[in-house]
C-alpha cells in the first residue's frame, strides 16, 4: 500500500523509490544471511539531488558500510562512508566510522608505532628530567653519605649522635612522606621550595642516609692495620681516611651503591607526587589523556633502558675499582 502511495506521490517523471520498503527488504535479506543481496539493494539508493532529503542516502551508505565492515572489508566500508562524506563532510557518524575503520586497516604494530611517535616527545622530556634527578642525587648522596659515615664513626659524641639520627630518621620513614614534608610541609615553616629543589633535597637526603650506612660499613670493614700503618708514617686521621681508608672502600662499595642507584632510578617516580613532571608523571598524563596503555608500556621500556645502562656502567666501574687486586 505504501508503495502505491509513494508511486502516486512521485509522479510519472521518475520512478521514485520506496525507501522504507527497500530498507525493510534489505533487513530481511540480511536476516536470511544474504548480505550481498542486501548490499545490492542499499546501493540502489542514489545520492540526493540538490535540495532533496538526504536521510535515506546517508542511512543506506552507513548501513552498507556496517555490513562491509562486518564482512571484513574495511576498505570498501571506508569507500561507502566516503560517499557520504563527499556530500556531507561534517557528518560525524561517517567520520568516526572511517577513523575506527582506518585503525583496523593498519596492522597492530603500525598503531603502536604511531602512538609511540606521538607519545615519545613528552616521554623523552620526562625521561630527561628523571635522568637529571638521578644524576643530581648521584652527585649529592655519595658526598652526603660519606659525611654521615665519617660523622657516625667520629668519637665526638654529638656528631655521631646527630648522624645516627639522620640515618635513623631517613631510613625509617617512607621517602614519599619525606618528599611531602619537604614540598608541602616546609612552606608552613616559611620555606617554599621549587618542585625540583624539593625533589633533589628529598632524594639527596634519603639516599645520603642509605649510602651513609653502607659507607660506614665499608670503612669499618677495612683492616685496622691500614689506619695504623698510615698513622705510623705520620698521617693525620684525615689524611689516612682520604688517602688510605676511603679509597680502599670503593671496590666494596660498588655493588651495594650500584643497587641503591638502580633503586633510585625507580624511586624518582615518587617525585611525580610533588608536581614534578618526570617520566612517570609524563606517562601518567598521556595515559589519562588518551586512555592509551602504550604510554605506560613505553615508560616501562624507558625505565628498563635506564636501569640497564646504569647496571652496565656500574659493572664496568666495579671492575676497574678492583683492578689492583688482580694485577
Amino acid at each position, binding site marked *: 500500500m505504501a508503495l502505491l502511495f509513494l508511486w502516486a506521490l512521485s509522479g510519472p517523471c521518475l520512478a521514485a523509490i520506496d525507501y522504507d520498503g527497500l530498507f525493510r527488504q534489505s533487513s530481511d535479506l540480511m536476516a536470511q544471511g544474504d548480505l550481498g543481496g542486501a548490499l545490492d539493494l542499499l546501493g540502489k539508493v542514489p545520492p540526493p539531488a540538490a535540495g532533496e532529503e538526504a536521510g535515506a542516502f546517508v542511512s543506506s551508505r552507513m548501513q552498507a558500510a556496517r555490513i562491509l565492515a562486518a564482512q571484513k572489508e574495511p576498505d570498501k566500508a571506508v569507500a561507502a562512508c566516503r560517499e557520504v562524506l563527499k556530500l556531507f563532510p561534517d557528518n560525524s557518524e561517517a567520520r568516526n566510522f572511517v577513523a575506527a575503520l582506518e585503525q583496523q586497516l593498519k596492522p597492530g604494530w603500525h598503531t603502536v608505532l604511531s602512538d609511540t611517535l606521538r607519545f615519545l616527545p613528552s616521554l623523552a622530556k620526562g625521561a630527561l628530567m628523571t635522568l637529571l634527578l638521578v644524576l643530581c642525587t648521584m652527585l649529592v648522596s655519595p658526598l652526603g653519605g660519606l659525611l654521615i659515615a665519617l660523622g657516625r664513626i667520629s668519637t665526638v659524641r654529638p656528631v655521631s649522635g646527630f648522624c645516627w639520627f639522620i640515618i635513623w630518621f631517613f631510613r625509617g620513614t617512607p621517602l614519599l612522606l619525606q618528599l611531602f614534608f619537604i614540598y608541602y610541609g616546609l612552606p608552613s615553616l616559611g620555606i617554599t621550595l621549587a618542585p625540583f629543589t624539593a625533589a633533589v633535597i628529598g632524594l639527596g637526603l634519603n639516599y645520603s642516609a642509605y649510602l651513609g650506612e653502607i659507607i660506614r660499613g665499608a670503612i669499618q670493614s677495612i683492616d685496622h692495620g691500614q689506619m695504623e700503618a698510615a698513622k705510623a708514617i705520620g698521617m693525620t686521621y684525615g689524611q689516612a681516611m682520604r688517602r688510605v681508608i676511603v679509597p680502599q672502600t670503593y671496590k666494596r662499595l660498588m655493588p651495594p651503591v650500584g643497587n641503591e642507584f638502580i633503586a633510585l632510578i625507580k624511586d624518582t617516580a615518587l617525585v611525580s607526587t610533588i608536581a614534578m613532571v618526570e617520566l612517570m608523571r609524563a606517562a601518567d598524563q598521556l595515559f589519562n589523556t588518551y586512555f592509551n596503555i602504550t604510554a605506560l608500556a613505553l615508560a616501562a621500556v624507558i625505565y628498563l633502558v635506564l636501569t640497564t645502562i646504569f647496571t652496565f656502567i656500574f659493572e664496568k666501574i666495579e671492575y676497574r675499582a678492583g683492578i*689492583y687486586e688482580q694485577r
Partner: protein
Amino acid sequence: MNSADQPLLKLKNITKRFKSLTAVNGINLEVSAGEKLVIIGPSGSGKSTLLRAINLLEEIEEGAIIFEGREVGYVMSKGKRHLGHPRAISALRAEIGMVFQHFHLFPHMTVLGNVMEGPLTVQGKSADEARSIATDMLVKVGLSDKRDVFPATLSGGQKQRVAIARALAMRPKLMLFDEPTSALDPELVGEVFDTIHTLADEGMTMIIVTHHMGFARELADRVIFMESGNFLAQGTPEELFSAGQDNERIRGFLNRLL
C-alpha cells in the same frame, strides 16, 4: 740541643693498662743514637704494646716519652693527661718508622706509590721529589724492579721489604720493628734480615722485637728480655744469653726457641 751523650729516646716509667691488665708496667729505657736494641720475650709480655706506645699508637696511662730531649705526645690540662695535638703526634710519628708483622702495605697503591706516600702526603713534597726518594729506597731494599706492581702480587719477604722502604722514605731517626719476619715463610726470612742488617750497618737506631735469637745475637748491641710488662733482664747478647742460663724463666724461653 741534641748533645752527643743525650739518648735519642728515653722512656720514663711507662705504664699501659688494658682494663685490669697491665700490659706494660713502669718501663724505663734509654736508647742512644745508633743503638740496635732487640726485645725478646714470650707472647703477651707487652713487647708490641711497648713499641706502639713509643710512636703513640697506644695511649699510655703513666710515664713520659722523651724523644731527642723533649717530652712528646701528652699534655696536661685540668690536671689530667691527654694525647697532645694531632699535628704534634703525627709529626713525632713521621720521625719514627714502624714496620709491622703483617706489613700493612696499602693495597690500592703500587709499590712505588706506597713508598712515595709519606713524602708526598705527610711531608708535602712534590711528586717528582717523592718519586725520586721512593726510587732510592726501593733500590736500597733491592726491589726497584717491582716499583709498578701492586702489593698483592709480591711475596711476603718482598712485601716486608717494601714496608721497610715505605718507613725509610720518611727518613726516620728511629725504626721500630715488631716481629718483622714472624709472618714469613722460613725461606723468606733471610732477605728481610739482610735488609735490616744493611740498615743497621748504616747506623740506623732501631728497636726490634723478634723471636729469632740468631738475629738478635748477630745484630743487637743490647738484648732485653721482657715478661708480663716488665724488663726481666738486659745486656749484650753474650751477657743475656749466657747469664740467662742462670735465670730459669729466660732459660725456659730460650730453650723453647732454640
